């Protein structure tokens, strides 16, 4: 009974601890307040822009701690948040629209450490401040839109195949087409069956009329939902990037939700407006053959035209139903001011298909007026179930004569404010939402509260830890010291693993660590109480140590496995804060088993092993 560890076990303890210390190391470097300057949609920030920023900061006399040139982007470190906020105002003025900036924090971790994979822990929004929103995608609307699109296709297919129909009616799940006689109906069934292979086709006779019904099969519905979600995630990601937020998170949750987390954002109102906005543009020719006022008063709208109102003065206007180009064909947009009138405007770039159409239409219509329609889904209220009621608002923001054929790039004026022009350009750039969205959860934490949470969390961990360590030394003497060493090693390992996994540390996560600290000593308490028992029944010190570790082991295993089960269940079922707690609890259980069994045994063996010991200080 020599109580000596083989060399490899001692080396293992040293190795694990050294690795732990190494990966925990990045966390002791301070975090600088910083501003990240980056191009919108992955564009490179030009050297001239970088110089401009540097000069502007010099001129304003704001001290810069470090200017990190990352090639495509620029990261500016500051010594204080006051400097950072001052600089924000300066930078906002000099940056062109294609470049965005974001307030962030940047760690001072040396390059060699980063090179070896060392990174500080991610701090959750509750610790660093920011906004978290959970977005619900309105799948019913996505399906309804698709059914409507199919309805138009059905009409044109029947028409081009010269099949006469009476009515085409869309409902929630399909399209009903009514025919006068069975022969036409059968012809239609064949035509539609060939054209819409992905839809279900049924026939039915009722009340002397003949019907074909097209339905969406489950696979098609799944595909529509998946597309709507994916498209919305892409759009929201584009919008978030355009907002200029450092380290944004846009992630799918479940089959109809999107989580957006934006650290450091200080204006939740703007974020919510941009995320949910649906504004887009449409270009149409003006119907000059009919009088709009007459049409409005008589209610007789000429076929092929639609009645709109002009935003500026509210007068009615008739536009051709056929759209020249829609927002979908816009590839890029930037806001600015019109040189002549000084009013806010948006410069629009079209894709090749849109550009071709625009050219063809405008060549034929030089001298005639063209209108720009601004379309937006606005929430106007909520129904009894709390679902938002949305109305499509469409108004004409500009009417101008076509002076010359237009191509891929042109300007649109008539917007209310530079702010509206700016947001419209942003939305056009980011693309449209495939289905309406609704914010169902929001959590915003101000930056000062985040810092308070960090301070309070750290304080309670430290004080709690200190109290437990004092107790352990008083109660278990030398063995208490071993347990304390294990406790510290355990904390280092938890931090190292959190950093390595790049898991996010939240306030409940800190609570999980605190709880682990309390429970981590449990293994040592079990072992030491066993050793005391063995000593009491007259075992020699060496035999007592051996038996103590041996007998306590299965108890420790059982106790920790059951707690681990609870932690895993918490992680898999819980959300947000509960998950953060479960992660640190689970990591803590595993690391504490190592430090409090293997770690303390190594120390015990080092001090007492292999020699004659008369009495144990326990």
């Amino acid at each position: 009974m020599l109580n000596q560890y083989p060399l490899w076990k001692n080396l293992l303890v040293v190795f694990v601890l050294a690795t732990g210390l190494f990966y925990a190391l990045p966390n002791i470097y301070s975090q600088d307040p910083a501003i990240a300057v980056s191009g919108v949609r992955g564009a490179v920030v030009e050297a001239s822009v970088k110089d401009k920023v540097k000069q502007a900061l010099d001129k304003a006399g704001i001290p810069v701690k470090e200017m990190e040139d990352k090639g495509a982007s620029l990261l500016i470190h500051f010594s204080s948040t006051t400097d950072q906020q001052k600089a924000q105002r300066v930078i906002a003025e000099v940056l062109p629209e294609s470049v965005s900036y974001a307030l962030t924090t940047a760690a001072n971790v040396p390059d060699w450490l980063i090179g070896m994979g060392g990174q500080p822990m991610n701090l959750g929004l509750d610790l660093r401040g920011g906004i978290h929103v959970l977005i619900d995608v309105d799948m019913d609307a996505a399906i309804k839109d698709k059914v409507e699109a199919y309805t138009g296709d059905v009409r044109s297919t029947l028409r081009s195949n010269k099949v006469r129909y009476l009515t085409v009616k869309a409902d929630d799940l399909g399209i009903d087409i009514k025919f006068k006689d069975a022969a036409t109906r059968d012809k239609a069934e064949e035509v539609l069956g060939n054209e819409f292979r992905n839809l279900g086709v049924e026939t039915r006779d009722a009340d002397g009329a003949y019907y074909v019904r097209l339905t969406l099969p489950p696979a098609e519905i799944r595909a529509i939902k998946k597309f709507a979600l994916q498209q919305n995630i892409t759009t929201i990601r584009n919008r978030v990037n355009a907002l200029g937020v450092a380290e944004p998170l846009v992630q799918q949750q479940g089959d109809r939700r999107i989580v957006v987390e934006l650290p450091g954002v200080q204006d939740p109102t703007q974020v919510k407006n941009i995320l949910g906005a649906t504004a887009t543009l449409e270009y149409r020719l003006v119907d000059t053959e009919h009088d709009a006022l007459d049409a409005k008063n008589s209610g007789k709208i000429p076929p092929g035209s639609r009645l709109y109102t002009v935003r500026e003065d509210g007068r009615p206007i008739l536009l051709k139903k056929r759209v020249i180009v829609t927002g979908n064909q816009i590839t890029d947009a930037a806001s600015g001011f019109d040189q002549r009138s000084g009013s806010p405007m948006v410069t629009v770039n079209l894709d090749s298909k849109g550009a071709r159409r625009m050219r063809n239409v405008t060549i034929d219509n030089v001298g005639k007026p063209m209108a720009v329609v601004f379309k937006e889904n606005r929430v106007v209220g909520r129904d009894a179930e709390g679902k938002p009621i949305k109305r499509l608002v469409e108004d004409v923001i500009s009417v101008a004569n076509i002076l010359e054929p237009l191509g891929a790039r042109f300007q649109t004026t008539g917007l209310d404010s530079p702010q509206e022009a700016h947001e419209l350009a942003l939305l056009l750039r980011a693309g449209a939402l495939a289905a309406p969205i609704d914010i169902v959860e929001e959590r915003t934490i101000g930056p000062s509260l985040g810092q308070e949470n960090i301070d309070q969390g750290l304080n309670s961990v430290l004080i709690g830890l200190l109290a437990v360590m004092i107790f352990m030394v008083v109660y278990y003497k030398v063995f208490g010291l071993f347990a304390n060493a294990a406790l510290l090693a355990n904390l280092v390992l938890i931090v190292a693993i959190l950093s390595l996994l790049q898991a996010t540390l939240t306030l409940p996560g800190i609570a999980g660590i605190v709880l682990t600290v309390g429970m981590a000593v449990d293994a040592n308490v079990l072992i030491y109480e066993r050793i005391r028992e063995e000593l009491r029944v007259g075992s020699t010190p060496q035999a007592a140590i051996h038996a103590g570790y041996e007998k306590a082991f299965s108890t420790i295993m059982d106790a920790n496995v059951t707690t681990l089960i609870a932690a895993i269940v918490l992680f898999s079922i819980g959300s947000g804060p509960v998950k953060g707690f479960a992660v640190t609890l689970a990591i803590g259980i595993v690391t504490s088993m190592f430090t409090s069994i293997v770690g303390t045994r190594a120390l015990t063996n080092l001090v007492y092993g292999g020699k004659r010991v008369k009495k144990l200080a326990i």
Partner: protein
Amino acid sequence: MRTLTSNLHFNFMGKRKLAMTFSIALVVISLASLLTRGLVFGIDFTGGTLIEVGYSEDADLEAVRAALAGNGFAEAQVQQFGTPRDVLIRLAPREGVKSSELSDKVFGILSEQSPGKVELRRVEFVGPQVGDELTEDGALAVLVSLMAILMYVAVRFEWRFAVGSVIALVHDVTITLGFFSLFQMEFDLTVLAAVLAVIGYSLNDTIVVFDRIRENFRKIRKGDSEEIINTSLNQTLARTIVTSLTTLIVLIALFILGGEIIHNFSLALILGVVVGTYSSIYVASSAVLMLGVSKADLMPVQKEGVIDDMP
């Protein structure tokens, strides 16, 4: 410091009738309160909006209430949060208003009303639908973890121990919830996490005791089940108390220093640890004894760990 272990001989099981009466009384009070008063659910579960704002000076709650009432938010609950400068405002979900815009409106009103600067510290908005989902998920988490634990203990020990440990867990959870109901303290997501952690902790405690009971059943030849359980409880008592003590030390540190947001979280855990420690001695072990565990049930089979004599 003198150690606690110098040969203790408390007759725990002899007092089990008394303990049981006490436990049943607590559980009944808890259940009665849960049924009649219910829990004060936080917005995580009910849906609604919560706004925390910080003033540069001590806040005048009456003025805040008046300003909100004057702008159509008469039902807003306004209270102090932590320090006299911080104010917490709660709004129920509303019809006809986009809920995610409520917070902006309220903050606008407060900024106008206050002469000094107002800081938006925190906004939490949870839609009613999400709230319902969280409630379901939470209840599911508690049930699933109880089931998983029941199975693990049944496999590792014996079915009577599994039932005993789950009875103890239900006892602990009920009393913790009962406390929150009785004192009408807010039950939010963090408290739910605490309740789940209590399950883990109390179980840890119970398993340690069970482990010793199993060992002693196999080792000690004299004495009936009651005596052996008593011996086991006395042998593990020192550990039970020391571990509870160290855990309570850190929890109290968290309670006092951890800030307003995790106040209820730490309180639930403190309560759970106290009740859990008590229940692993009295409830779990008494239940096992009453279910009629005997030496024969725990004699080692060929392989340890596959003991299962479910009738």
